[in-house]
């Protein structure tokens, strides 16, 4: 290949309702690598984009949550397959955005893909692990099953742009929720590429919506939105913004996954801790012998 070929650069846009629109606001912001070099203009999502994303996520909820757990698992596994094929591109974006060596960036991408596979395998085990048969003291058949909370707003981690993102998005999807994600503000590019992976992996449009931009700007609208059922504050560190968002979420009794004091090591085994906050338990009773 000729070395003087001029590369075709990508326009980084939002991923919303299964499409790749620009922000309705027309705004963009410059994304730089850790050395300050220009990488791209990312779309700067607005309040209106966030609202549109909630509508898309709500619209996709019954289809996604109503799919069989096996089907959801296969779709999520398909995402990992397509990620694997894009690993080099992800590694390049992670290296530039996070200032990692090529080797360490590749390791982060591998960990992200493996994390996604891990969550893909959870979809059809949650009911057995978290549900129960309830031996009530009477002639009733009783059981409890986990069900998704609904539409979950995810403020993705600011530093770990792909592994962190996958670590907060995977658990929300595995449980059957749909998501509105605000990406890392300064490192949004791997998220947009993940959107392209999702769009080509049989994930129904609207199940995941990725908004590049500032969590401090969009987060408050999502925290108070009446059609958002839960919010993961991972992208804020505990303190002013996190507290403000938790207070705001109280007005609609949202499930809130609090932020840690500082961004955690995303390579650690997450257990069930990021899935259970966005799962409800439904208990069902029926008489026996009547």
């Amino acid at each position: 290949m000729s070395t003087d070929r001029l590369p075709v650069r990508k326009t980084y846009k939002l991923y919303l309702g299964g499409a790749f629109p620009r922000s309705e606001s027309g705004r963009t912001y410059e994304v730089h690598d850790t050395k300050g070099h220009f990488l791209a203009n990312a779309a700067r999502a607005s309040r209106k984009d966030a609202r549109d994303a909630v509508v898309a996520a709500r619209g996709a909820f019954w289809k996604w949550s109503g799919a069989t757990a096996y089907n959801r698992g296969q779709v999520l596994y398909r995402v990992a397959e397509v990620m694997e094929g894009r690993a080099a591109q992800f590694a390049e974006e992670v290296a530039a955005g996070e200032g990692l060596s090529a080797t360490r960036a590749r390791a982060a991408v591998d960990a992200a893909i493996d994390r996604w596979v891990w969550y893909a395998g959870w979809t059809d085990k949650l009911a057995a692990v978290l549900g129960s048969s309830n031996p009530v003291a009477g002639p009733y058949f009783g059981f409890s099953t986990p069900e998704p909370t609904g539409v979950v707003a995810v403020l993705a981690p600011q530093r770990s742009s792909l592994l962190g993102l996958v670590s907060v998005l995977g658990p929300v999807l595995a449980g059957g929720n749909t998501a509105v994600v605000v990406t890392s503000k300064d490192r949004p590019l791997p998220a947009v590429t993940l959107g392209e992976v999702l769009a080509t992996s049989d994930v129904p449009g609207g199940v995941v919506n990725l908004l590049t931009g500032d969590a401090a700007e969009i987060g408050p609208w999502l925290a108070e939105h009446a059609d958002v059922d839960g919010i993961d504050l991972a992208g804020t560190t505990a303190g002013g913004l996190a507290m403000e968002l938790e207070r705001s979420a109280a007005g609609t009794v949202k499930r809130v996954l609090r932020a840690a004091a500082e961004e955690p090591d995303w390579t650690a085994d997450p257990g069930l801790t990021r899935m259970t906050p966005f799962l409800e338990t439904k208990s069902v009773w029926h008489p026996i012998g009547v």
Partner: protein
Amino acid sequence: MTSPFEYAPAPESRSILDLKPSYGLFVDGEFTDGTGAPMKTLNPATEEVLAEVATGSEADVDRAVRAARRAFTRAWGPMRPADRGKYLFRIARLLQERAREFAVLESLDNGKPIRESRDVDVPLAAAHFFYHAGWADKLEHAGLGPAPRPLGVAGQVIPWNFPLLMLAWKIAPALATGNTVVLKPAETTPLTALLFAEVCQQADLPPGVVNIVTGAGDTGRAVINHPDVDKVAFTGSTAVGQSIARAVAGTHKRLTLELGGKAANIVFDDAPVDQAVEGIVRGIFFNQGHVCCAGSRLLVQESVHDEVVASLQRRIGTLRVGDPLDKNTDLGAINSAEQLERIRELVDVGEAEGAHRWQPDGELPDRGFWFKPTVFTDVSPAHRIARDEVFGPVLSVLTFRTPDEAVAKANNTTYGLSAGVWSEKGSRILAITDQLRAGVVWANTFNEFDPTSPFGGYKQSGYGREGGRQGLAAYLKGAEQ
């Protein structure tokens, strides 16, 4: 009431009670005076003053939290889990031994029929302690992580509709998982919690493990806002729950909320009408409708609407409203003048908005707080009586034509605590049950409770579960759910 069934009065005796003229707070294993202005608790059926009860001030709450912290650090935390379990077994047995006393006191202070306090509230409260007692030394097998640990001091605030039962729902899991508690009973129903304090003494429960601080909203706020409380558990209205979630935001405190509801009770055209009518009555008139999971929105398939409503009205005509201590009473007194006012206000709005009100004939007692069982027909989903929680014996009847419409209407609420489905077709029940956004679904039954069955809401009915293996997670660190 003019009823086809005439009964001679059959009142349960009050003589089993040794009611004191005044009660203090229960802190660090002893009854002590409160420093707030004492309040009076009434018998809502007669408006007679039952006793004077202390009001816990901020300083009293602080004393209680310190006692709970000491007990957590020195006694309850280090104790062998099996021994914690034995204390809870003792409490369960003591509740059973003194069951009649508790039932009579509950009916006096709350206004609920003795039939319910005797057959539901008190036995279920004992069952909750018995169930959780067994968990105390088995937590590492609960699937909640390999080494679940207690959180510390739990601050718990409970409502007036099931005073002893809600106490049991709060205290039993907290203690079984190794926490200590400061509990604030409702302002209008403090007496069974104070009798429960005597049970703690009889059980030789170490001082400070359970502290009971009576009072009103200010006392509750002091419990929730105390910096040394690690866990807040609240059952009550959604409005108060929202303010608690705001207060807890940004702190280390863990929170569970069990809030309001506006449950749909869906009756399909293939349901056996007589059974469904019994379930509708149980769904809305149990405990005078003072039930967060009450089936307050009846959704009837259009083709059987007239038949169901006629049968329901006939059945309601046989319900006996009156003396809570009478063993034949079906509906007792409304718990307070304030609650009665709220019910009246919403019922007036229901009529003003154009729904049709129906109540059975009959007289209500002259004194006390009473409201007749009430059915609204011609209700539209936009009416306030179809949206707001009335928390009284008031049923709103709506109709639907298709299963999809039933689901859409049932889910058309900000609440999501419970729901009911009546049909003879199993596959239909399971399909509808799947689509209802509610934490408990009763199919061909309603208002059943059990300590083994997790209870709690979706959406603005709150979060966290009480009961079952799932309910333990609310009180454990390192718990994975």
